[in-house]
């Protein structure tokens, strides 16, 4: 006979649900669903907000030149071109540099310096983008104008339209690309570092055993092993560059009328266009078109980040909540 009382339900392993447990599960589930719904809300609101523009233009306005809402011209091509060009410059500069830094930090750096140098590189990511923009306006733009833009435009710029002047205030797509490169460098560097760190040692030891130099070991066994993760890191960096608003807004020169011929002339990026015009939109169609541009931007970064996460999937990143 089973003893009665507290030990009575030892027979049959029934899970004890205590009072309060059900509500606890419900409440925390509710907040988790709330987080999910935020993404849904963002998508739905932007879909609704862009309804007018979608009905009027479809997506054709993305490759139409000439942004002049006052006169009814809604060609977003200057913005798309500016976004793509500045992000391409940023990735071209920061990609290889970031990989080199990641290689140094994970393979070649002395142990005692490793965490301090990593911290310093990641500090670049912590600086607010408006500070980047301000520093860019007062320091980088004049420097770039004097030592890079004017020399190039007055020499080979005379032959190649893409590199031609005139260089006015110095705010241009080129400088914006450089600032974006500085901003995405820590992302690429730290992801490369983390991805390289989890490459198993047998790869390295095998190469060294057959007499490779350290660089050959890195180049031929470690980097290829980690290349998916490195590409993922570059895609995350690219996503950040595409969406960067304030620094681009302050530096790119705000020229929206047409696609600029030269990289050293002012232009506009999509995010900067939306940020500068949305609060003062002339009419509902203008506002709706801007929201549609924002929706396209969201979609692109969504896809890019999704693909990047898949590539960097199994990387040990630690408590990396604030890092992209």
């Amino acid at each position, binding site marked *: 006979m089973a003893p009665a009382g507290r030990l009575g339900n030892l027979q049959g392993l029934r899970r004890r649900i205590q009072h309060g447990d059900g509500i606890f599960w419900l409440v925390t589930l509710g907040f*988790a669903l709330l987080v999910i719904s935020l993404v849904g809300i*963002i998508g739905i609101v932007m879909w609704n907000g862009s309804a007018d523009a979608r009905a009027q233009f479809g997506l054709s306005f993305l490759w139409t030149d000439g942004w002049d809402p006052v006169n009814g011209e809604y060609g977003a091509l200057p913005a798309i071109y500016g976004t793509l060009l500045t992000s391409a410059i940023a990735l071209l500069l920061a990609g290889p540099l970031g990989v*080199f830094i990641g290689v140094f930090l994970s393979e*070649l750096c002395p142990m005692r310096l490793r965490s301090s140098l990593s911290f310093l590189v990641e500090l670049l990511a912590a600086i607010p983008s408006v500070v980047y923009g301000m520093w860019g306006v007062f320091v980088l733009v004049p420097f770039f104008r004097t030592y890079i833009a004017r020399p190039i435009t007055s020499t080979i710029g005379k032959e190649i339209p893409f590199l031609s002047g005139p260089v006015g205030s110095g705010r241009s797509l080129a400088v914006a690309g450089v600032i974006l490169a500085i901003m995405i460098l820590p992302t690429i560097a730290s992801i490369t570092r983390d991805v390289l760190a989890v490459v198993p040692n047998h790869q390295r030891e095998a190469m060294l055993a057959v007499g490779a130099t350290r660089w050959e070991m890195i180049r031929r066994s470690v980097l290829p092993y980690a290349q998916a993760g490195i590409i993922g890191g570059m895609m995350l960096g690219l996503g950040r560059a595409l969406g960067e608003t304030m620094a681009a807004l302050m530096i790119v020169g705000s020229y929206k009328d047409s696609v600029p011929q030269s990289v050293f002339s002012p232009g506009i990026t999509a995010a900067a266009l939306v940020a500068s015009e949305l609060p003062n939109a002339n009419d509902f169609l203008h506002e709706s078109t801007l929201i549609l541009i924002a929706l396209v931007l969201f979609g692109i970064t969504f896809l890019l980040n999704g693909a990047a996460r898949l590539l960097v999937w199994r990387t040990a990143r630690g408590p990396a909540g604030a890092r992209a």
Partner: protein
Amino acid sequence: MISPAPNYRRRRMFDRVMRSMTVAATIAALVPLVLIIGYVLVRGLGAWSVDFFTQSYQPPVVSGGLSSGGEVANAGGVLNGIIGTILIVGTAMLIATPIGILAAIFLAEYPGNSVATVVRFCTDVLSGAPSIIVGVVVYYEIVRRIGADGKPLGFSGLAGSIALAILIIPIITRTTEEMLKLVPNTTREAAMALGAPKWWLTFTVVLPTALSGIATGVLLAFARAAGETAPLLLTILGNNQVSFNMLEPMAALPLLTYKYTDTPFPAQNELAWGTALLLTVLVLTMNLLVRWATSKRAGR
């Protein structure tokens, strides 16, 4: 005797060159860091004064008349921005922290759920999305929403707080989840063995154990929220006076930095450097605190 391969010297030279290029790359990354912090420190400190911290916006009054060369007599200060940032970021933290922590509790305490996978995916999407997107959404849904009295709700500090909260919820959720997962299951089981219900043991045993880690996540979120400008551009508009009314337009430090960078008056540009220094000091302090707390925890 083993003799080295004939091209060994060339390979060794190449190896040295490439390795020093990686060192050069790292130094090249630190150059902008030093330049930015250096410039902000030097020019920002020049702007810091008692007036800077205690006064609000002053319209640029050119002393000596328009022909004097444009010396602005009194550039004022950024008190409106300081108060605004404290209020707006504080409210955003108040909104986001409970939501983030409770969602993280769900992820950590009920693992293996399909909801959990979707939540993690959503936090990734939110943290990777351009911050302007959140600003657009809050602008469209709140600032432009027609209220009960037939007028749009308009720009307000509260709208800015909501936008910032949406931005930082993923940060808090992810770091809290990771910290909660680090609490060993034996702790939970010990509490359960003593008869504690799950909700009680989560709040009195698990959370306090993970508290320092959660606090670092909150600090990081605070630093991020304080520096964000794009969503504020579309939601709070800015205010030239010190205002404590969250339902009206307010000022904030990052917005002031942006505004004062674009004005033609050097005295106001100085204010931009000053606010940038304030923001950078804030953000750097938070990051240093987080690093110190993390290393202390790792050393334990």
